[in-house]
């Protein structure tokens, strides 16, 4: 129906949009907005996986694509917005790094990601993979996810940062290997899902015991 080049172009555009969502997360202070952006990001990631599955005939990734859309783009965002409703904290107030500086640093991270990806791309002849341009973007998504965890202190922001990182890792896998074998992908999905559930329970409990979910204000555990 479409040739490989068109599909690759589609995947590249989707990946670039995913990168844009991470920048939007960094630029905002509303927790609900973070969750919605994460849902969009995961939906786009699911579409990338779907294109890889259908476009390149890698059917084993089809289930991972569906899981991404169902679990990451739907179930987890719904659960997280329930958490936000319950804890009644709507805004990220405590910024270790302000928004302007954050955006500049994230732009630098994108350049850094490109230089990390270059040796990988040069080390192997990349002719057989049509979507290798996505690798630098996926590394950038990972790095920005980690950045969100460092720069934003609310518990929900930390979860979003972690999930964004995981999305970046999944995207990198899609771009250079067309995804891992099915059983492995399903196992990884299960682990991530359970991790989010457990973290969600902790957010509830931290909130119950401290009346705030700002993880930085709790500093009892110094040596």
């Amino acid at each position, binding site marked *: 129906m479409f040739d490989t080049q068109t599909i690759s172009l589609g995947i590249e555009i989707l990946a670039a949009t995913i990168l844009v969502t991470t920048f939007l997360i960094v630029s905002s202070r509303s927790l609900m907005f973070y969750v919605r952006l994460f849902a969009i990001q995961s939906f786009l990631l699911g579409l990338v996986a779907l294109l890889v599955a259908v476009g390149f005939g890698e059917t084993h990734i089809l289930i991972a694509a569906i899981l991404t859309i169902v679990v990451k783009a739907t179930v987890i965002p719904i659960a997280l917005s329930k958490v936000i409703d319950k804890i009644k904290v709507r805004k990220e107030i405590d910024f270790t790094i302000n928004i302007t500086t954050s955006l500049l640093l994230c732009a630098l991270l994108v350049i850094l990601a490109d230089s*990390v990806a270059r040796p*990988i791309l040069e080390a*192997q002849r990349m002719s057989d993979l049509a979507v290798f341009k996505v690798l630098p973007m996926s590394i950038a998504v990972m790095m920005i996810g980690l950045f969100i965890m460092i720069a934003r202190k609310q518990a929900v922001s930390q979860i979003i940062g972690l999930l964004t990182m995981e999305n970046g*890792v999944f995207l990198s896998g899609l771009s250079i290997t067309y995804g891992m074998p099915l059983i492995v992908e399903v*196992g990884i999905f299960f682990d991530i899902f359970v991790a989010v559930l457990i*973290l969600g329970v902790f957010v509830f409990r931290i909130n119950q*015991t401290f009346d705030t979910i700002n993880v930085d204000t709790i500093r*009892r*555990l110094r040596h």
Partner: protein
Amino acid sequence: MSVVYFLVLLGIPVAGAIVCTLLRRRRWFEYVTVTSTGLTFLATLWLTSLVLQGATIMTPKGWFFLDALSVYLLVIVSGSTLVVALYSIGYLHRQIRNKKVDGSMLRLYYILLNAFLSTMMLVLVSNNLGFLWIGTEATTLATAFLVAFYERESSIEAAWKYVIICSVGIAFALFGIILTYFSALHVVSSADNALNWSTLIAVGKQLNPDILKLAFVFILVGFGTKAGLVPLHTWKPDAYSEAPAPISALMAAGLVNIALYALLRFYILVNKAVGGSFAPNLFIIFGLVSMGVAVPFILLQRDYKRLLAYSSVEHVGIIVFALGLGTPLAYFGALLHMLNNTLAKLVLFLTAGNIRIAYDSKIIRRVTGAIKVMPVSATLFILGVFAVTGWPPFGLFVSELSIVTAGFSAGNVFASVLFVGFVATVFVGFIYYATGMVFGEPSRHDKKGDGDTLSLVVIAVLVVFLLVLGTMIPTMIYNFIMRAAAVIQV
């Protein structure tokens, strides 16, 4: 046929966890868990004898396999879990009497203990690196609520920190595994085999060295977080000091070895593919830095559970350093040290649990005259302290001596001198605090009361084992370690 072995090994603890969810009576949780951990231990001994007699055991698709290295770790980890299960009985009874634990918490504890064991087993039997990752992340998830067990503010915070930091680390490791897989896809014809460690080792020299180097850096960060290598060790003191004593013990004795095992598998692979001194140098540097950073935290410590946690950081450093030296003697020393450290950590964390209950405090200065309050536990504790600081005639003396000898004969004089300096300094700090806790006069409020007989007997057996390893290593164990070390030396 080989599938049956793995079904048995993974099935017993999973069954234990499921049965615990169905039970109501307190006693039954204990019976079931002691049975499941005991059977798992027996099964690993049986599989060990099979592996040591013949070749490796592998399932048809190569997802799971056993060689001398994995069964060595299986015995250590399942043995530690059995010890912890036996200790937990008396410990939790006392906590119920102190109104710190109720019936439903008890059930959760035993379900998660079984689940924890099954996830550790999964890591150790995985040939497929994807499963290895899944198992490692699952160990974090199985222990999350155990760290938060007492539901104090500080324990929930510790558990939060633990899950977040370890999940970030493990995400990096996943990227490293993807890079490894990517490099393998160019060499291995079938994508199904391209994640299998045994396949990768066979084609090792054809893998792209530059990609594997980068992959190893991510994997070192990822599994290094889980092992508690500096600078990613920060979750460890919090989690170890907040978790119930038997769980801290199992994290220091089991989980640490799981992470080291995962690192070791990649270390072997990268050495094969890259050769030279890339991975060994990283190990030497990270090992020494972990030892060095632990020193001031051990010297200036107020909390004895955190003291033990930093000792764990130090000993992970020792093992990683030894692996980095890369000679047969160093590999022998590293593997022997894994066993010794496991035994010493079990002794220390479990006796510290008894001290904690008697004094109701984790503060070192609050604990004085333990030898009068709880003679047996205090004696075992001080013996454990001598063992962990590398005194003869305990096992750690032998393994640390092998490592230093290997270091000097490999020409790493400066690194080896640092190693000796760190070990000696830690010794001074440890003895200073431990003698203060054990000797002297107890304050008037401290009522006498030692641990239960069963757990004291179990801990005493561990101390005897440490003495045996320090004086005359049985030929059987020596040969076993040599077989496991041969796996590293490909």
